[in-house]
């Protein structure tokens, strides 16, 4: 049995750190793990996706349509874009922050309205919160990735202590306290 987690967002939002933290958390539990990242062209403000898979033995590094147990999204439109990758009964955790893609900026397309409601109406289990605000409350907008991991804590099926230990391993000492605070604040939105 493998657990499939997708981390999606806009290039430059810091999803690589989130995937490192999850990779470390999974390793602490002695699972086999594969984490697949996107580098290069897509990092320049494009749509980016990271796959984290763990279990007794992981074969493919990628996650396909209908396979994700959890999708963590740094941005609302990206949550909607990757929704078809969610497994039936999976959970999608999304930041409600909106970043306009270039076709919206130039007026060639519109940012769809009410996406959280529409994803729920489609049958998906959605947890949505302003992770940027949670990170600000913890002390820095940069902690948004750890706030999201906190929000996803329940769905991830990894215990809080392991996740906190993974944060400890993955972030610099001087930012540890504010990141742990972001995790706890995020976790209060995780049910």
């Amino acid at each position, binding site marked *: 049995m493998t657990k499939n987690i997708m981390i999606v967002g*806009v*290039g*430059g939002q810091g999803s690589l750190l989130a995937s490192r933290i999850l*990779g*470390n958390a999974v*390793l602490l539990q002695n699972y*086999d*793990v*594969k*984490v*697949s*990242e*996107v*580098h*290069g*062209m*897509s*990092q*320049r*403000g*494009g*749509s980016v996706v990271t796959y984290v898979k763990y279990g007794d033995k*992981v*074969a*493919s*590094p*990628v996650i*396909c*349509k*209908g*396979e994700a147990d959890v999708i963590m999204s740094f941005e609302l*439109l*990206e949550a*909607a*874009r990757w*929704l*078809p*990758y*969610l497994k*039936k009964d999976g959970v999608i955790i999304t930041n409600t922050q909106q*970043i*306009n*893609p*270039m*076709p*919206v*900026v*130039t*007026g*060639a*397309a*519109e940012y*769809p309205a009410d*996406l959280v409601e*529409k*994803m729920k109406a*489609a*049958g*998906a289990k959605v947890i949505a919160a302003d992770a940027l605000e949670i990170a600000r409350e913890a002390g820095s*907008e940069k902690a948004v990735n750890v706030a999201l991991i906190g929000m996803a804590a329940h769905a991830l099926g990894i215990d809080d202590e392991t996740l906190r230990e993974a944060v400890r391993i993955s972030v610099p000492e001087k930012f540890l306290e504010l990141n742990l605070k972001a995790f706890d604040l995020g976790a209060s939105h995780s049910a």
Partner: protein
Amino acid sequence: MKKIMLGNEAVARGLYEAGVRFVSSYPGTPSTEITEAVAKYDEVYAEWAPNEKVALEAALGAAIGGGRSFCAMKHVGLNVAADPLFITSYTGVNGGFVIGVADDPGMHSSQNEQDSRHYAIAAKLPMLEPSDSGECLEFTKTAYDYSEKFDTPFILRLNTRVSHSQSIVETSDRVEIPVKPYEKNIAKHVMMPAMARGRHVVVEERLAELAEFAENCPFNKVIENKGAKIGIITAGPSFCYALEAFGDTASYLKLGMVNPLPKRIIEEFAAKYERVIVIEELDPIIETHVKALGIKCDGKNLLPICGEFSQELIADILLNKKNDCYTLEDNIPVRPPVLCPGCPHRGVFYLFKKLGLYVSGDIGCYTLGAAQPLAGMDTTLCMGASISALHGFSKVRGEEDKCVAVIGDSTFMHSGITGLVDITYNKGISTVVIVDNSITGMTGHQQNPCTGFTLKGEPVTGIMLENIAKAAGVDEAHIRIVDPNNLKETEAVLKEELSAKCPSVIICRRPCALLKYVKREPALTVNADKCVGCKMCMKIGCPCISIVDGKARIDATLCTGCGLCTQMCKVGAIV
């Protein structure tokens, strides 16, 4: 020790553990992190070369000199390095030599899809292909023993999903391998016809030995599942996708050595199954080999040559299985990559479009200047081609006052210089714009000969682009340096040099906005009372600016205060 590592980091660890002494590479996604990671080990000398040809030649020199050596590149980089690559099989090595090449099926960050296995076949070199980080480390390390045993370089074929996926590796200590003695041997190392004729015979004999070795190579593995009627022959990441799709309902022959391919293992494996399927991304290389052995199999008759594979693609095509999934009715707008907020290239491309120029483009972040709304590029071919292709375009069309080449600092050093020499030598009058952001941007901020630092972070005297232009024969009066964030000045200089009847070089110099030392200015704001909603500021394609209720609005969290939009605004609404 058990660790989680990126495939590229695992290759670097393998190099370290194998006692490699010399690494020379040119950055290229998805291969870049190998060289960045290996540079962190003090025991290994590592450098960025100006291009892949130089890197491979330097590494070959190091191997002839008796040290274990390595060079890495992306698939198209191997095209640049093809000339020395083909000669390596003739000269052989002294110290072990491994060449890492990373293919990019699906073109996550490349201009084409290319199967590097063709090079191994054409250059008559052995090739290994790992499928995860654990194998990256193991194959890399072992390749050095093989390289020295057979006196040939080994090619390590990687792939975006292998290079950029993290999985578990088992690390061990470095083994120090002393530099081997060097003995002069012109019959082996001086490749002129008389000697090369003798070496070609050696190459063919070695290839036959390697083919025999492939029959027993521990990297070619059979995984048998009881009751399976399907036998899958596969390699690299395709093995991972196939395993996930078929599980234990099939048996697998996973080839870790993909050139030369074994004969007997394939025949023995195929004989056991009712149906044989070859699953490989890109070109049908294993399939062609299997068919040449007289074995009936499925492959590219069912699976695509174009694009990347996944378990979903394999399950859909071969098992007719599809997962249920949630869908929305809304049309989700695409989110293509864009030039970053504050990018110094933005203004240059706005001006190209404004002046209605034919723009001969090149490879780098600035290729994004081709996208709407900037749309300031006509061609992007390969590294360095902006300048040479402009020369040809201008010669046949005779419209040199309406054409420019645009190229980055690192790409100019890679292979732009010779194109400029073509222009000056052959009486061209073209204008070359070098967008000098003082770093190799697209691959994630690597140093280059112009930046003043080496890969290991040591300060050096940076090469001045203006000096190279002068040495290449451009008149000093027509080598211009401008700040691309000053639109007025840049436009004026562009117009002057386009009308000049001699070759010219315009260096648009401003560091990448993402560099740590670049200070961010305070975010700009729109005075809504002054804004007339004319959308002039939208023409520069800045991701910070949007129109809300008919007026411009700037996202303060993204804006770097570069001031380009302030210059665009005719009513002074942006401050």
